[in-house]
């Protein structure tokens, strides 16, 4: 897998339903965080959150070769190590 250039996160939902976009430069990611991102991309589709009013995350990962991958995540499916990136 090519090196991560950037992680863009669109947060939606929550009680307020307000959309928010955040962007993290790939260079600031730790090795652990890069590994967690790879695991998310290779793993099965994460389960939806139970209940209501949780956040949803649309995560777009741009690689240095210009390719992109996109995943949808429930708040409950965010690995603890990525909580500063996917928020």
């Amino acid at each position, binding site marked *: 897998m090519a090196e991560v250039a950037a992680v863009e996160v669109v947060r939606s*939902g929550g*009680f307020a339903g307000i959309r928010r976009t955040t962007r993290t430069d790939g260079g600031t990611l730790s090795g652990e965080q890069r590994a967690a991102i790879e695991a998310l991309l290779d793993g099965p589709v994460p389960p939806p959150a139970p*209940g*209501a*009013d*949780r956040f949803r995350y649309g995560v777009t990962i741009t690689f240095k070769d210009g390719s992109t991958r996109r995943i949808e995540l429930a708040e409950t499916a965010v690995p603890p190590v990525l909580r500063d990136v996917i928020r």
Partner: protein
Amino acid sequence: MTRLFHACPFCTIAPPHILRRLVEAGGPAEREAASRTLDMTRQLRTARMRAMALGAPAVPVEAALLGRRVSGARSTYDADHRTRLPGRLVRGEADGASGDPAVDEAHDYAGITRDFLRQVFRRRSLDGRGMALASTVHFDRDYDNAFWDGGQMVYGDGDGQVFQRFTLCLDVIAHEFAHGITQFTSNLVYFEQPGALNEHFSDVIGCLVKQWHLGQDAKDADWLIGAGLLVPGINGNALRSMSAPGTAYDDPLIGRDPQPAHMRDLYHGTEDQGGVHINSGIPNRVFWRVATEFGGQAWGTAGQVWWSAFTTMLNARASFADAARATIAAAGTIAGTRAASVVRAAWQEAGVRVPAGARVAVGSPAGAPARPAATTGRRAKAAKPAGGRAAKPAKRVAAKVAKAAKRTMGKVAGPAKRSMGKPAKRAAGAVKTAHLPTAAKRGAARGGKPAAPRPTR
């Protein structure tokens, strides 16, 4: 941070102590209402003290009281800014104020919501069987959200830049509470239109509890969800407006309220579970339209119609059109043909078409009430023509009740009179049960489907 606009949002909910003072200024009847609706805690404390004076151990008495008498006993927890739930117990049903505003708001407003449901809709807690109510505050750090996790209510403190603490508003707490009710009744799937209906029902209950607590008529209410939640300086009054979806806020920091009020503007994207907090604007405005057209208190006829439709007639995958059919049928059953026409017109105004006489024979002599989804396990086939056998008497009673409700609503004014309102209560109770088919009564009494298992985290 600089702000381009300056708004003055404030929470319009009267804190319990203010209401208490208002009510105490009234007559003996008002005082009775105050003690009943505002201070269940005091009853328990008195019982405990009496028991202790008699030399009896306090705890068993309290436990017995909690177990037998308090339906929906509250436990309020502190997550200490972490994400493990439920966290540390800080206030039980019988405990006095903790001094922590978030804890006390979550606790007190859950109590008001519980009382509202019991008095107005004869509902015992979330599951209809008096299930205990758990709330957790101070969830995570700078957490801009409140949610229902499938088993309890959870509140963040807000980041202080955009949001204040989510326990500030009674309607937010009632909204989360209502997600629990939906889970135990229609169990609307949290995606696209059924998800938007799930959100809509929570906003309806949020508004109804707030208006009931303030003793407001539909025409006097602000119909806002989360008024005062945005920090001063953010250009917005609230997070949603039921009377004018799409107008609650417009600020460079958080963007513009995206809610549509009409089907032509329905959001079709994948964000927010297919727009559950966006498209709820459409049914929200329908409810506002119906409540203001009916007049009087929104928790009266309009509330009864929505309660009946959403807790007994919808299946988990209901669309807006299904909700329209169910509410039109419920209006016909509860308040008569003219009420059904008002509901139909409101849905049509929002672009939700319900062909007259298609599946709902509202107003026709053959019109019969729908069977609850909870009982049949099928999609709500609202008011399937059933031979017109029961039509005449049902219509007569409906007219009678509509008249009684009108009479009551005209009289009842302030919060004291409202919570006092024995006639109002009686009328509401009559509306709730008198015209529901026996199966619906059974379904309502049982509280619909069994609980979904508590999720593991």
